[in-house]
Every structure is written in C-alpha cells, then in structure tokens.
C-alpha cells in the first residue's frame, strides 16, 4: 500500500467522521437543550433545569394528541395489514387482466407528494362530511401505508415454500386451512416488518395529516408542528428527548424481534428503500 493511498484513506475516514457529526449534531443539541434553563434556547445554556419537562406534563397539551397518534397508528396498521396482505396475495398468486396496472396504482401514493394526498383527502372528506373525524385519519393513513405493506407482502409471498402448501393439501387440508396453517406462518417475518414500518410511518406522518386534523383532533406530529410555529421554548426539546429515547428503545426491541423471526434480510433489503420514500421531509 502506497503512502498516497494511506493518505487518501485517512482523508476519507476523516470525512466520514465529519459527516457523522453533521448527522448527529441537531439531535444531540435537542437533548442538551431540553435541560436548558433559558426560555429561548440560548447557547451555551446559562444553566440547567428540568422545568421544561414539568411544563410539558402540566400545560403542554401534548397528552391527548400522543394518545390519538398511538391509536391512529394501531388502527391504520391493522387496516393496511389486512387489506395489503390480501391485495399482495392477489398480485403474487393470480394472473388477472390489468395486474400491472393495479400494481402501479397501488404504488401511486409513493410517488404522489404527501401534501397533494393531504389536500385531496381534505377536500374529499369535507364534501362527504367526514372532515376532522378519527375515521378519516385512519383512512388516509391506510392509503399512505398500504403500498408499503403490499411491497413487503408481495416479496414475502414470492418466498413462500409451495411444498409445504402441497403437503398440507395432500394431508387433507381444505384451502382455507392450508392458507392459515401452511402459508401464513411462513409470512411472519415480512408481516412483522410491514406492521413495524406502517406503525412508524403513521406515527410520524405530518405532511398529509396537517390538512386533515381539526383543532381538537391533532396528532402528535401536527401538535408539535403547530407548537413550533408559535413558540420556540425548550418544551419541544423535552418532548423530543422523550421521543428520541422511546424510539431508541423501540429500535432495539424491533431489531431483536426481527432477528428472532428471521425476517432481517427482507427488512433490510426492501424495507430500507421503501421506508425512505415514506419518511416525512
């Protein structure tokens, strides 16, 4: 190895470290700032206190939106798992006219900007009188998470071992039994991955939801968004720190779960790219 190559590698690694600092900096600052005693996030912090955590719990008003977000994410995940798995089964197993078109149509919400989905849904719900309802949010989030569940489920069905299905049939299983006892258990990995992603996407969804929530039906992201537009105090940092902590715990738990079920490769291969598309920016 030549000296120049060494130098090149050293430079490359130094650059990597800088990039990593860049990635982590704003998040680290948020955590530090949540303990800032100054009310406008002065830097460096003149002192430290936990008053923003107290403020968060006493008059932040984030409690109901947080509960609503969890309920919404659970409901949307359940709907898109049920719909998505069946749709994926149809796409993966049957050859029907217009199959490609359906596949393209189902993937459409991946390409259409979330803001456009939001305003379209807003006008639609207003017309049919659903605006501001919990059901309308579930419906919108189902549409947003569906392509993604279908992507993972189609990939999963493609890997299902048909031998097991045939064996089940030979042993006298009716088609429904065969599906439930021989096919679905093999889908456990992809289904868990799909559920996890659709929960995360729904829980973090802002761009479309902001058009759909009424004053009293804020989700956690929309409540935070509106709060940040109005105030800049570290209450938001305190809440963010708690959320960062929660997502770290969840990430570790999910990693373990997926590693145990063995869906990790699928998760990494397909999930990464698709999750990317859904991430709010």
């Amino acid at each position, binding site marked *: 190895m030549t000296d120049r190559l060494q130098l090149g590698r050293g430079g490359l690694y130094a650059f990597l470290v800088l990039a990593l600092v860049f990635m982590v900096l704003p998040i680290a600052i948020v955590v530090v700032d949540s303990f800032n005693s100054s009310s406008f996030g002065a830097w460096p912090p003149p002192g430290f206190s936990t008053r923003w955590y107290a403020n968060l719990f006493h008059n932040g008003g984030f409690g109901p939106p947080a509960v609503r977000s969890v309920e919404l994410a659970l409901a949307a995940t359940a709907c898109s798992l049920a719909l998505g798995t069946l749709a994926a089964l149809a796409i993966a197993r049957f050859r029907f006219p217009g199959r490609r078109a359906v596949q393209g149509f189902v993937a459409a919400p991946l390409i259409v900007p979330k803001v456009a989905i939001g*305003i379209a849904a807003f006008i639609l719900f207003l017309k049919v009188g659903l605006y501001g309802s919990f059901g309308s949010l579930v419906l919108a989030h189902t549409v947003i998470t569906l392509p993604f569940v279908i992507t993972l489920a189609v990939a999963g069905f493609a890997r299902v071992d048909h031998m097991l299905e045939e064996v089940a049939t030979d042993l006298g299983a009716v088609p429904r039994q065969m599906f439930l006892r021989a096919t679905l258990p093999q889908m456990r990995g992809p289904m868990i991955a799909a559920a996890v992603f659709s929960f995360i996407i729904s829980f973090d969804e802002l761009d479309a939801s902001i058009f759909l929530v009424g004053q009293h039906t804020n989700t956690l992201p929309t409540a935070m968004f509106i709060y940040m537009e109005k105030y800049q105090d570290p209450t*938001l940092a305190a809440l963010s720190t708690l959320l960062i902590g929660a997502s770290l715990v969840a990430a570790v738990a999910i990693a373990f779960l997926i590693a145990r079920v063995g869906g990790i490769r699928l998760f990494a291969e397909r999930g990464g790219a698709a999750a990317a598309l859904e991430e709010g920016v």
Partner: protein
Amino acid sequence: MVILAVYSFRAFENGRLEPGHTLSTWSDLLGSSYFWSVVERTMKLGAVTVAVTAVIGYPVALALYRLRGSVLRYFAYFLIFSPLLTSVVVRSYGWALVLGDGGFVNNLLIRWHLVDRPVRILYEFSGVTIGLVHILLPFMIFPILAVLDQLDPMLEQSAADLGATSWTTFRRVTLPLTVQGVIAGSQLVFALAISAFATPTLLGGGRVQVLASQIYSDVGGLDWPSAAVSSYVLLALALVAIALFSMLLRAQTGTRNASWEYAGE
C-alpha cells in the same frame, strides 16, 4: 379487496378534481410571476440539495464500503439512520437551535472571531437546504453503497496491478461503474426535496416559500383552487423528474439497481 384499495385512491384523486376551479385559476396562477418564483425556488432547492447530498454522500459511501466487514460500519449505519428515527419536527427544531442567530454555529463563529455579527442562516434558503441535506443524505448514501457493494474487488486490484495510481483507479474504474448509484440516489433525493413540506416551513419561517408550503398557506387562506393547481404542478414536476432520472438510469448500464423501481415493485 384490491378493488377497494384501488377505489380509495380513485376517490382521492376525484376529490381533488371536483372543486369547480374554472380555467381562470389556472391562467391566473400560471400567469403570475410570483407563482413562477415559487416554482423556481422549489426546483432550485431540489437541485442544490441533490448536488450537496451527492458531494457529501459519495465519499461517505466510499468510506463505508472500505469499512466492510468491520463493526464500525454498523455503528456508522446507526448514526446515519438515527435521524430517521426522530420526527421531522424534532429534527427541524434541532437545526433551528444550531443555526439560529444566538445558536451553536453563530456562537462558535463569533467566539473564534470569524464574524462580528451573527450570520443569518435560519429562515433563509441556506438553512432550509442544510435541513433537507441532513434528512435526505441517507437516501443518497444507500443507493451508492448498494452499487459499490456489488463491485468486484478484483477490478480495482487489476487496475492497481496494471500500474494505475489510486486516484486513476477511482476515476477510471470505480466512479464510472457506480454512477448509476448516484443517479438512483439523485432521483430519490430530488423527488423528496421538491415535495418536502415541514422542513421548508419550519426552517424557512415563512420567508422561503416552496410549492408544498405555498399549498399549506393557500389552504389556510381558504384558497383551495390555487392549492389544487399548485398540487397538480408539484405532482407534474415530481413525475417529470422521476421519468427523466429513470431515462438517465436506463441510458446507463441498466436498471438493475434502480432503487425507485426496487421500492415500487
């Protein structure tokens, strides 16, 4: 069930079509220079974000590639992906603290006597760009890394054996073979950057209007027809951009690693 899923999209599209916007909204908006300045800013934001993420993302992907087989690589993965685990509002709030007039960066600049007065970054185009680069960098890094990982290490070895310097090897062998990763990454980053809503709104503070934030303020001002026209323009821009990048990708060595198709398939 498929039909039900399909219909839910249908209904949404129709909902956008229905409000009786006559041709006048289209002609008014498309004839206004303000509207075009917003479109231009949106495109510029997309282009600058793509350029910056490519310039930062390529060396990072290369460094990660060289780290293959090392635990460090997974640690780096984690740090790069960590922003994705946090809400976009949290990330924007973090950048507001870092870039604000009394924030972290200005504090350092003043302490080191590089500037006398705080540099305005927050609520400017530059602040929005920094926020978007931060969020979209992983989407540039991973397609490039995916292509690099498929590269035959023998190729670089042979180039070196044939007497090429490391720089020549990179320029003549590695880079041309991984251009499709850059194109795939650019496609993702551009499409996401022009439709970004939260980052330009929060870090632009109303002073950096792009199409998505314009749509939001139009709806706030009850000007639905304008919002609808703007969403169509945004959708059209996204589709054209995606199609152009796909063509570029096809013109390259093939669509094998097109992350867009990968995700959509």
